[in-house]
């Protein structure tokens, strides 16, 4: 069973501990600016929404990559970036309609959520049920995906699945 991140805005307090741990996992320092998990504040801080890559089926980033730097981890299903292969062309960062893959100028490559190899550090950090690592089908991603997939090209699967 593949698992994915469930991100729940109702219980998110906006403490950003997920960003702290995520950045630690990514760059070895506490630096929310390097986190690929982002918490956005709404309504005067009354609503906090965590967001990151949903590891979507379409994998716009992976499909568009000109050097095959993004591949699927067969164990976790996560679309992972190879920092060695990525040239930093950033095409994936405009192709992802969720804005979930970003260029990092310091490293010269793009970054995104890779589910930490199956043990997401953001989930470990979260003091509330806002982040959980659950069955892929119970994440509630549909409402995120539906906005985009309805009108975009159907690229359901690729040869590299």
């Amino acid at each position: 069973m593949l698992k994915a991140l469930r991100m729940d805005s109702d219980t998110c307090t906006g403490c950003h501990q997920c960003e702290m741990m995520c950045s630690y996992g990514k760059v070895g320092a506490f630096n929310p600016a390097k986190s690929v998990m982002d918490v956005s504040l709404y309504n005067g801080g009354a609503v906090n929404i965590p967001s990151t890559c949903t590891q979507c089926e379409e994998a716009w980033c992976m499909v568009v990559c000109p050097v095959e730097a993004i591949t699927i981890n067969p164990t976790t299903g996560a679309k992972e970036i190879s920092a060695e292969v990525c040239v930093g062309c950033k095409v994936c960062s405009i192709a992802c309609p969720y804005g979930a893959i970003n260029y990092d100028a310091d490293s010269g490559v793009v970054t995104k959520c890779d589910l930490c190899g199956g043990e997401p550090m953001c989930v470990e950090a979260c003091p509330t049920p806002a982040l959980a690592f659950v069955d892929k089908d119970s994440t509630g991603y549909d409402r995120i995906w539906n906005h985009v997939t309805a009108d975009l090209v159907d690229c359901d699967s690729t040869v590299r699945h």
Partner: protein
Amino acid sequence: MSWSEKILRVDLGAGTCTSEPLNMEWAQDYMGQRGLATKYLVEETDPNVDPFSPDNKMIIATGPLTGTIAPTSGRWSVVCKSPLTGAIACSNSGGFFGGELKNAGWDMIIFEGKSDTPVYLDITNDKAELKDASDLWGKSVWETETTLRERRGDNDVRVASIGLAGENGVLYAAVVNDMDRAAGRSGVGAVMGSKNLKAMVVRGTVGVKVKDPMAMMKTSNTAKEILAENAITGEGLPTHGTQVLMNVINELGALPTRNGHDVQFEGAHDISAEAMAEPRESDGEANLVSNAACFNCPISCQRRSKIDPSHFTVKDKPEYQMVSGGLEYEAAWALGAACGVKDLDAVTYANFVCNEQGLDPITLGSTLGAAMDLYAAGAITSDDTGGHELTFGNTEVFVAMVDATAKGEGFGKELGQGSKRLCAKYGHPEFSMTVKGQEFPAYDPRAIQGMGLGYATSNRGACHLRAYTVSSEVLGIGGKTDPLVTEGKAGLVKAFQDLTAAVDSSGTCVFTTFALTGDDIAPMIDAACEGDWGVERLNEVGERIWNMERQYNIAAGFTGADDTLPERMLKDIAKTGSAKGSVNRLDEMLPEYYQVRGWDESGVPTQDTLSRLSL
């Protein structure tokens, strides 16, 4: 590691920003934030300086744990000489500004001199410059923060600024960050205003490193688990916020009411946590919208509140019909019970104004309570107040006075001087519920004896956050002590003062100490910082800081005679509640306190004490 080892020195007169290395010897002795910033102030300024003189400095400081994974690591402090008290001022805030500053690679910012024209400080990592703030002068905290965020073109910047109160020299003006988190007490915002400094904008992407990351994770996780399992930090504070105390303290008979005339407030429930969560009759919505957290905090005690849009305070003011930082216990008490006001939305409105224009709600509420007392005594009349009947519980007039104070209009200008100056001017200095010129908060010293000693000896004037003996005397944390008994309170107060001074210098929140002991906190500091950090050293650093602050105050002209409480607390008995018939018996505690502190009978640290602490 953990310290950025870098200070930003901003000469407002010359308009320059320069980087200099942090004095790491001092960092080892005073840690950061409150302790280290005070050390710099002590070394660099004259304790007798006029607080509004360009020679007073304002120091913004993070601690070594600020910006790390240690729970509640968002804390930062503002240190300067206080215009309200003339004593050391150290105000501590949460939100996200402190973490961002640390993440930009700075331990501290030292502001010196005064700018000729309004400026703001703009920081992106190691790049710092002063920019023109002429167009921001006269704007609220909310407008300033929004404008600067848009101007910077970066939604992730963090802003700390002053509102009209700081600009107008209200003696208890706050520095407000992240829209409604505040370094609230002792008038640090007025000092900022006196320097023509409107705001600080920070974006940090450098990252914070620690000595031993694995140990840091482990100790932080342990601390998080303790915080999560604790009834107060894991349940009470997230659910009810600090307001969980309103009914508890009122039932105990320790809620100073109507400027200390009473110790219980008949409207306490109306302004309590429980009332905030109840749907209003008027619109069916609750005042409380949600809780929220400061940076890296698992407790999330913040309140997010919304006033009924049809409430008289906001019905013509759409800018207040949104969600902002809601009532904390101290604010609800000051703006409610101390003034006899029990209209929750009106109290919330007053709190929003404090957020918006940068005011300390404790001193504002207490000063208004004192003014009402003066009015009741006939010392001031409606001629003084612009025609307003300033009686206890007059909600409309209360709201009008809050607005007037924020804007510096009419009688509001006098209210902006705090209760000590106000009451002295009108011939009743005894009406001022202050110690060393700063208003005391929401715990009546007649019903909680240790808090009286805590207020009397607090280095920044009356304060609950220097020695929160309520933990022991009311909540029973770390062993219950009887709040009506004076015995043992000297040692208790000292222990709280020392540990709190250390925690306030670490970069974490003192609320963790509801659940964490020094034995839980020291290992996190040890994992983050160079050197060996055990609980003994933590307490020693705390004691060193306490004595340093004391020395500063003595040099500034304070003596043991200032370690006292308002007459009303010492002479007028509590009329109801558990302490019915009691006064605060400070005289039974103070000599012992001096003794356990290693101070002489007049309250001066002995040479032995100073050398023991390497002072």
